[in-house]
């Protein structure tokens, strides 16, 4: 077994174990941290496939940003585990159906006529000058520029909609206006008063 294969099985094992921990861990925070580990090992697997841009983007976006916010929310919520486990048996049948469909889809893709391992030989190794990032950028901003821009607009709409749905203006909120705070001068706030010192009483106490 060469090094690449050994590395693949090592990361794949961790990935599967971490993914299992996500759904079996009792504590939601442990589940979220296992998901972080799963993302990270998935990125390592992508690195083995010479997709370094996607691998690093996966760590940067999912591990570095999305999961941080996710963890933030999971830690803040006081999740009642017993409530969460209610209705386990009711959901079991639909979940099994969904899982069966997913397994079937994977089988069709991996075992089918068009995408089986025999049809998809290993791509030739890229030459050392090849830059994954540059290649991706060139395709994304030329051939697929409309799809890219449409995706960007959809995301923008999603951001605006998310804010619109959750924004609640309270009437009794107190706001600070930073420009007014900055423009405050000493003369507006402080008045220095010159007081004559009381000379007549000096030495009386001593």
């Amino acid at each position, binding site marked *: 077994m060469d*090094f690449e294969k050994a590395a693949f099985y090592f990361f794949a094992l961790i990935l599967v174990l971490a993914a299992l921990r996500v759904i079996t861990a009792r504590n939601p*925070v442990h589940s979220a*941290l296992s998901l*972080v580990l799963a993302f990270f090992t998935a990125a390592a697997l992508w690195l083995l496939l010479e997709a*370094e*841009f996607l691998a*690093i*983007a996966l*760590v*940067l976006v999912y*591990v*570095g*940003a999305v999961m*941080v*916010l996710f*963890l*933030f929310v999971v*830690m*803040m919520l006081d999740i009642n585990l017993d409530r969460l486990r209610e209705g386990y048996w009711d959901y079991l049948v639909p979940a099994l159906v969904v899982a069966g469909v997913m397994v079937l889809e994977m089988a069709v893709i991996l075992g089918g006529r068009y995408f089986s391992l025999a049809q998809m030989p290993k791509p030739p190794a890229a030459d050392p000058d090849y*830059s*994954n*990032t540059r290649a991706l950028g060139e395709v994304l901003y030329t051939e697929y520029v409309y799809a890219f821009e449409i995706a960007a607009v959809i995301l923008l709409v999603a951001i605006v909609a998310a804010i619109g749905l959750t924004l609640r203006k309270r009437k009794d909120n107190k706001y*600070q206006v*930073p420009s007014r705070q900055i423009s405050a001068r000493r003369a507006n706030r402080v008045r220095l008063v010159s007081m004559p010192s009381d000379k007549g009483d000096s030495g009386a106490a001593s």
Partner: protein
Amino acid sequence: MEWLADMIGTPAAVTLWTLAKIVAIVIVVTLCVAYLTLAERKVIGYMQLRLGPNRVGPKGLFQPFADVLKLLVKEVIVPTGANKFLFITAPVLSLMPALAAWAVVPFTDGAVVSNIDAGILYVLAITSMGVYGVIVAGWASNSKYAFLGAMRSAAQIVAYEIAMGFALVCVLMMSGSLNLSVIVDAQRTDLGVLGWNLIPLFPMFVVYFISAVAETNRAPFDVAEGESEIVAGFHVEYSGTAFAVFFLAEYANMILVSALAALMFLGGWLSPVPGLPDGFPWFAAKIAFLLFCFLWFRATFPRYRYDQIMRLGWKVFIPLTIVWLLLIGILMRMSWWPW
């Protein structure tokens, strides 16, 4: 290295050689951290008309070793109700990114552990994981103060990472590469300091450096520690070695972000004056100056209020970086570029 390859074969020799480089970097970074703590106490001492530590060794030069020894022999206390595994893992999680990111930092022309093509992306991805140490520490401590510190830190780091990322996008537009060595080479002109990215990207340098101060949880952005409000924030329950590792991570991160700022905006190992030879001393001097700025800020500015930090990150820095990105793009497209 060749004699080693002859002796034990090429793959083993490459592995050993890389390991040796890693160990060398870790030792040097750790020593730098030790003396950075001393420098911090001395510099802030002089700024406040004090002498700073001067008892251990000549002029207090052995003070860091005394501190380390003290921290190592102290007991590590695990609070009741804390999650033991995560409590011990958290300091390691915060130190790992601070050291791993050095893999792609070139010290001078060609002196880099791994000259990978996506260097900046790697650094961004690895450093973005540092926040887990803080969050996990805050949660696993089972303490309200620690938890509040973790929440503050998470919000702050997410806010400033975006501005930092946009500032770096400007840098890579200027140099057309994600590789840190190429970014430094792109700043090489006959004009010395005038060719650096600092001049056309000065607002981005300011945004990057302030974001770096915020990302490393240093004063005036140290609300995650906030001694006066939440005691010591996320590491309030830590003692002994575990605390020392957090401390090490914070200072290693400071050195790292200073090195990155020096590479991307201040021309790395290039000399500021045309005619003088380039080399590692320039790089070290630039890092030292930026680190001095960190200490200077700490001695000068009062701590930001939490809502002011959020406002600065989201409402000031991010719009500013987007506008500057557009401006640089237009200038490059129209070939109105003086550089």
